[in-house]
């Protein structure tokens, strides 16, 4: 037996941290680009054009309703079959970006919707153009409503990035599974991995708490 399994070593921690770094990379890119894309979608829905809203919703509903794991495997297989195989990082990140965007779009849309129409009319009556009003009134006011929900989406994206392991990308979770298999010390490893995920997410949670504090004062 002792020949098959080997005990945990310090180098394994480095291996885990490398995985964690990849989790951070994939999360940051997905949250950043997913948020930008989601803002565009959310804004499009706020135009109250039935056709545009229908088209955007139809696309987003697919991404919101189909489990992320299935999306990842399907997308990764499709690009490979189509003859454009992508590195696991990119096919994973692209799917995660769109998935995040589909969630952010709803958050942004409801944020814009929460701005009282009278407020927007008042701004326009002062001579502001649509974009001036959007920038100086709707965005800051809507952001207050949208920010806590956006934070929830961002935190979920960090955790969901673990699913990219299913297409062979060795991020934090996959790294821990590899170590599990080799050492059979799953409790120790899972505790450690949980801790690392917590450390990655903690700054965002703090940001949210600080924001709430500021809103109250």
């Amino acid at each position, binding site marked *: 037996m002792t020949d098959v399994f080997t005990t945990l070593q310090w180098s394994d921690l480095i291996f885990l941290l490398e995985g964690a770094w990849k989790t951070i990379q994939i999360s940051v890119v997905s949250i950043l680009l997913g948020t930008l894309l989601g803002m565009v979608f959310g804004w499009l829905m706020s135009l109250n054009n039935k056709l545009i809203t229908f088209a955007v919703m139809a696309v987003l509903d697919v991404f919101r309703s189909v489990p992320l794991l299935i999306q990842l495997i399907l997308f990764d297989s499709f690009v490979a079959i189509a003859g454009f195989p992508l590195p696991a990082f990119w096919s994973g990140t692209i799917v995660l970006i769109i998935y995040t965007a589909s969630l952010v779009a709803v958050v942004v849309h409801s944020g814009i919707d929460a701005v009282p129409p009278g407020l927007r009319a008042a*701004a*326009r*009556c*002062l*001579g*502001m153009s649509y974009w*001036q009003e959007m920038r100086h*009134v709707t965005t800051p006011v809507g952001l207050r409503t949208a920010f806590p929900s956006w934070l929830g989406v961002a935190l979920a994206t960090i955790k969901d990035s673990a699913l990219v392991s299913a297409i062979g990308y060795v991020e934090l979770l996959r790294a821990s599974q590899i170590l599990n298999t080799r050492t059979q010390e799953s409790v120790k490893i899972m505790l450690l991995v949980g801790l690392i995920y917590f450390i990655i997410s903690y700054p965002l949670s703090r940001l949210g708490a600080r924001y709430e504090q500021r809103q109250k004062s």
Partner: protein
Amino acid sequence: MIVLENLHKSFGPLEVLKGINLTVDKGEVVSLIGASGSGKSTLLYCINALETIDGGKVTVDGVDVHAKGTDINKLRQKLGTVFQQWNSFPHLTALENVALAPRVVSKFSRKDAQEIAAKQLTHVGLGDKLNHYPSQLSGGQQQRLAIARALAMEPTYMLFDEATSALDPELVGEVLDIMRMLASEGMTMIVVTHEMSFARDVSDRVAFFKKGVLAEIGAPEDVMNNPQDPDLQRFLSTIG
């Protein structure tokens, strides 16, 4: 000068303005009275193009408001609008509320815009509230803030849409006082109101609307003391 010619406006099958003709000269104060739903507020929104029109013409200083190619953002700088809801920008202090449009629209520097804002806020009696957020102000103070915000763009005309209707009764006076002050300073004003004493004391002319028609218009003493239209007689007796 604001000129409405044969103005028509419908919401779906409901025609709310049925051919309104009205000219408001510079320096004049015109009050629009009438039951709710008679088209008074819609008329204001047709002047500042918050609503489109279905027929006729609205011109402000000779510019056709609803013509294609009219720079509506520029035109609106001439038309200060105060709504029933005061619509203060909640994320900005009183000073920033008023300074925003001068800075963003008129391109004043931040410092100059804040000077303008401080001047206007002092003018409406809020000189000691410059750094308060709207949530720290009463309804009456917020409505005065809204007036200062409109004045900061140095409009030629002021449109008031039931500016005191949403206020607690004890706060109505302070807003009416500011409106009286503006009138005495020679501001051209179109005022949709249910405050009959204001209409009587301050207006040069009072216009009575019923069901989308301008039924009676004239000097306040004629319209309000000697009404010809039977509906106006009834309206005045009910509203007191």
